[in-house]
């Protein structure tokens, strides 16, 4: 999801840069006020760890492989503000060491993956792990949060591309959302497996809000309700919102030469678009996303149930040499 340069126009790049800068400044400020000094080296090491973890390939099928993105993993292990700084450091390094992700697009990439990915994911994680406050709850929350975080970030990415006028929203939203609903499953599986492994080796390193009380059935229903709400927020809002009209207006006002035609052609999902079938694709993606969100949550629950350690393991620490 690293957007290279040349796709985003100046308007999008500068808007996202301002958003990212303010969020990053806020995160750094929180760290300066509240972070113990001994945690600073840990953040550097955590950034190197995330970078390394992203390089490990998990085989998927037919020779393809996926890898960790890590926004939720970082925020569960370090907390949201350090996670923002660590993810930003990773993205900056990928840009300036590997040319992976653009320089002008840095603001957008940080915004999608480090700000939206971390904060969106962490919010989902916190809410669900509050409703299901045991070990399994943490894994359910982490799994579902990683999926949401991946999909959310991809939707932001799609919106930026559409805003820049490179591809119509009616196409780029279904394409990005569908692909990342699948990638999100892998991300959820890896994140949950990793957190379960850390729980076994060093339970103290995972968010220490665990309690022994098993969740009641009503709590599970409540968690499901929350999942549904997130589903609506994720997929129905972009569809129902009026911003494609705003987009057309902005396009007319700014009308970058050579881009005008493209911007005008951006279809509003419902009305007055020129390409048949696109609006319904947006609607279909929203609907599929809603169902997908529920399925993802159910999968998260099953996965977590299979992985949750039965007893608080004081366990051996030399599991994975």
């Amino acid at each position, binding site marked *: 999801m*690293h*957007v*290279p*340069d*040349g*796709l985003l*126009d100046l308007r999008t790049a500068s808007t996202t840069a301002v958003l990212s800068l303010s969020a990053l400044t806020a995160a750094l400020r929180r*760290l*300066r006020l509240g972070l113990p000094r001994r945690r600073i*080296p*840990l*953040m*550097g*090491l*955590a*950034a*190197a*760890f995330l*970078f*390394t*973890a992203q390089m*490990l390939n*998990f*085989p998927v099928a037919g020779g393809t492989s996926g890898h960790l993105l890590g926004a939720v993993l970082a925020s569960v*292990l370090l907390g949201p503000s350090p996670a923002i*700084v*660590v993810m930003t*450091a*990773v993205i900056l*390094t990928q*840009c*300036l*060491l*590997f*040319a992976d992700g653009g*320089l*002008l697009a840095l603001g957008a990439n940080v915004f999608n993956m480090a700000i939206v990915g971390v904060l969106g994911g962490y919010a989902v994680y916190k809410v669900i792990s509050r409703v299901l406050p045991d070990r399994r709850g943490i894994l359910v929350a982490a799994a579902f949060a990683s999926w949401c975080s991946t999909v959310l970030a991809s939707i932001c990415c799609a919106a930026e591309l559409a805003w820049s006028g*490179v*591809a*119509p929203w009616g*196409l780029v939203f279904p394409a990005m959302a569908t692909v990342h609903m699948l990638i999100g499953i892998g991300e959820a599986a890896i994140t949950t*497996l*990793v*957190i*379960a*492994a*850390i729980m076994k*080796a*060093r339970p103290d*390193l995972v968010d220490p809000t665990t309690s022994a009380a098993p969740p009641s059935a009503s709590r599970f229903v409540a968690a499901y309700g929350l999942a549904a709400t997130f589903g609506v927020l994720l997929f129905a809002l972009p569809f129902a919102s009026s911003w494609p009209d705003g987009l057309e207006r902005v396009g007319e006002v700014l009308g*970058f030469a*050579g*881009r005008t*035609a*493209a911007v005008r*052609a951006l279809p509003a999902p419902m009305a007055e678009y020129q*390409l048949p079938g696109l609006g319904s694709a947006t609607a279909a993606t929203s609907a599929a996303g809603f169902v997908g969100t529920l399925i993802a949550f159910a999968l998260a629950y099953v996965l977590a149930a299979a992985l949750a350690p039965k007893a608080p393991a004081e366990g051996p*620490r030399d599991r*994975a*040499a």
Partner: protein
Amino acid sequence: MRHDFLDKWSRLGSPIHRAPSALKLALALATVVASVVTPFPRWWVFVVIAVSLALVALMSRVPVPFLLRRLVLLEPFVGGIAVLSAFQPDGTRVALSIVVKSTLCLATMILLTNTTPFAEILGTFRQLHVPAVLITVLALMYRYLFVLIDEAERMQRARRSRTFTNERTHVWKSLAALVGQLFVRSTERAERIYAAMCARGWR
């Protein structure tokens, strides 16, 4: 330690490598902005950018096949978006514009990263008053990246020599355990580093 591959070419001695990194960063940003802002069919601008990039590439003495391989490796995302953008009125022109502009920008970034050592970029950040915490995190990250990659590789080798199955669920589980263990080790290493930093009078 053979992790030179990460930034193998960024420490050559060519005139391009010796130029101040602040200048290179500024020029790279200017090139990217210029190719983004230029309206598409104005070919001469793109030709000028492409020719000057080629000149810089030759002067930098970074092997051209290596640069081209990086370019091909980074191109798929651009290709995907270009294909999507072709499905709209006047789509071919937009798609062509995306490919031309993004390729120029990618080439710029590949040249920047392969002619500028990361430590110098951090120095520039310091001059630009980037917050100290972020610079410390970046510097520590760059220093220990190589150590952690080494560690991950050793762990993977150990796992391979102990397991004789290629079953996917097993691979996923053991890879995840490896990542988890890598985090645990990073945490412990961070504690030792903190102690060492304090012992050497870190503020």
